[in-house]
């Protein structure tokens, strides 16, 4: 098993990774990319309705973090959740079928794009009220500590969400009680149409836990290996009983806020520049070749495999039946 060191980049924090791991990261990121492109298409065809927030561009964040987490850990995020679920190894068929509102979806079709869960995979949703998942993630960490199960919770939130008061109520409690919580701020530069500079008095979001003594770090969120290295450090801190940790992932969303947002508020070439110079998948692909981990043929094989998974998911999502009308009344309270 070849062990590849990160190219000698000044200040690189990346841990060595095996060829298998590197290929797995590539495959995972590509799966999210193709899945989201397909979801966008299906939205355009009217097969998906309501709100649909794509994760295109941010793939390295969840894939890197997930590589640093262990089975038994917990993950929770906002409505921009498709990538997180695929990273948690939830079945793409079940995720896509939830997008189309079919019975084969993770929430029997009742939640849609924003609300999916998997107890089995430790994925706690899929939440629509900005910032409200942060106290929940803190509670997940509380439970890990109370049960002494060695688990850690990873709570994702956006650069817009950091201005919600309940985030700070949660930070204080997590620090006070030394909870095994890692807060991952996905700074994709915009909360809906408002840039970080126009929403936040200070834009160094990794410092937002300073008042509570929570260490924070800014990370290149377009680089899966940097993310993984930072994630490992933060998770070790939390798992080791030292309390919460904040990671600010510098990333970018390629699409508008949701399918109905043409994203006209961004400077003209910002998107093109991010795609060309910082795309997380292109970057790893180039490195895999440069390091001799994979050749064109091996990468093509991954492309093909991913495409097949996504096609199968889309087919399943269109063929799975709609929930029976009676389902309207189920899952409100526990059924006797």
């Amino acid at each position, binding site marked *: 098993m070849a062990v590849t060191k990160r190219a000698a980049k000044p200040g690189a924090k990346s841990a060595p990774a095996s060829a298998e791991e590197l290929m797995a990261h590539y495959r995972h990121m590509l799966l999210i990319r193709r899945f989201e492109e397909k979801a966008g298409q299906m939205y355009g065809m009217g097969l998906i*309705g*309501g*709100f649909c927030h794509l994760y295109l561009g941010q793939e390295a964040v969840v894939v890197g973090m997930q590589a640093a987490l262990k089975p038994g850990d917990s993950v929770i995020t906002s409505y921009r959740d498709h990538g997180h679920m695929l990273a948690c190894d939830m079945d793409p068929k079940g995720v896509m079928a939830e997008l189309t*509102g*079919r019975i084969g979806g993770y929430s029997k*079709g*009742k*939640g*849609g794009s*924003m*609300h999916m869960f998997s107890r089995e995979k430790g994925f706690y949703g899929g*939440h*629509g*009220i*900005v*910032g409200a998942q942060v106290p929940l993630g803190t509670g997940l960490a509380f439970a890990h500590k109370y049960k002494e199960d060695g688990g850690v919770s990873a709570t994702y939130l956006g650069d*817009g*969400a950091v*201005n*919600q*008061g*309940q985030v700070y109520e949660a930070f204080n409690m997590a620090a006070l009680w030394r909870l095994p919580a890692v807060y991952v701020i996905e700074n994709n530069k915009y*909360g*809906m*149409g*408002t840039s970080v500079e*126009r*929403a*936040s008095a200070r834009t160094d979001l990794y410092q937002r836990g300073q008042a509570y003594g929570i260490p924070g770090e800014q990370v290149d969120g377009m680089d899966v290996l940097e993310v993984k290295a930072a994630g490992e450090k933060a998770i070790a801190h939390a798992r080791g009983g030292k309390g919460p940790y904040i990671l600010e992932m510098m990333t970018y969303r390629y699409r508008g806020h949701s399918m109905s947002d043409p994203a006209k*508020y961004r400077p003209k070439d910002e998107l093109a520049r991010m795609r060309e110079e910082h795309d997380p998948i292109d970057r790893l692909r180039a490195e895999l070749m440069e390091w001799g981990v994979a050749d064109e043929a091996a990468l093509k094989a991954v492309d093909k495999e991913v495409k097949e998974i996504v096609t199968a998911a889309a087919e399943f999502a269109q063929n799975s039946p*709609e*929930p029976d*009308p009676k*389902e*309207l*009344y189920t899952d*409100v309270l526990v059924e006797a």
Partner: protein
Amino acid sequence: MTTTTYREAVRTALREALTRDSRTFLMGEDVGRYGGTYACSKGLIDEFGPERVRDAPLSESAFVGAGIGAAMAGMRPIVEIMTVNFSLLALDQIVNNAATLRHMSGGQFSVPLVIRMATGAGRQVAAQHSHSLECWYAHIPGIRVLAPGTLEDARGMLWTALQDPDPVVIFEHAALYNMEGELPDTAGPVDIERAAVRRPGRDVTLIAFGANLHKAMEAARLLAAEKIEAEVIDLRSLRPLDDATIMASVRKTRRAVVIDEAWRTGSLAAEVSARVMEQAFYDLDAPVGRVCTEEVPIPYPKHLEDAALPQPEKIVAAVKAQLGARA
């Protein structure tokens, strides 16, 4: 007459308010550069500048509270909360502060604030984004609650609300923003006291507000085809309720069905129904009917969401049940 939309009517009202009163500013998430989630304030930042069309961070509790504070200090703020769903983060400020300050200060302070928010379901945005919680606000003494269901009211209620020295909450149903219609060029401020009879009829009174007014009107058309003439009342003001207009109609038709997108339990439909029972019991030929949302979180799939919400067919069925009670 000009053909316009509900959205444009709201925008014209905002423009009027910002033009006529220098103490007025618009504050909320994405109201400025983005032009508003529902594009209601599109272009206003260019006309009035970022000081008066102010983008707020994602901090509902704080910017609603700041609006209340500014109003105490003599400003006339219009605070936009993107949707009623997110107003829950500011509920404390509205209920504990805006609604009580006049009372608690022995009349020294008033809170001349207008809070606007979108409300309602019907767009497949699932359980956390589809609430109709108008009745929660209508429960609170110390605030006034409005629900413009027509272009005239979208255009005209805002200025009148701003003249009110007390806090006013305005609910704009999200399904209405694209509604098109004619608006007289002279359209301007309207009263915010009275319910309106939107369609006269003699057989039954349909009582609704907001987007559900139009479902009631559609039901009235369906009923008319069967020679049943429904009178349709648009509540317009949800607190205070205009009992006089409601009772006058019910005394005439002797039957009432209340349509409300909220869940039945504890809804405005419950309140209206109780008032009819109290004030017009002996004029009724049948118990008051209610068409509300099924008591479940709003599901994402279209067929389930449609089944959960009030629909013209359900209103027709409720009316027929009333008429059956007569026979």
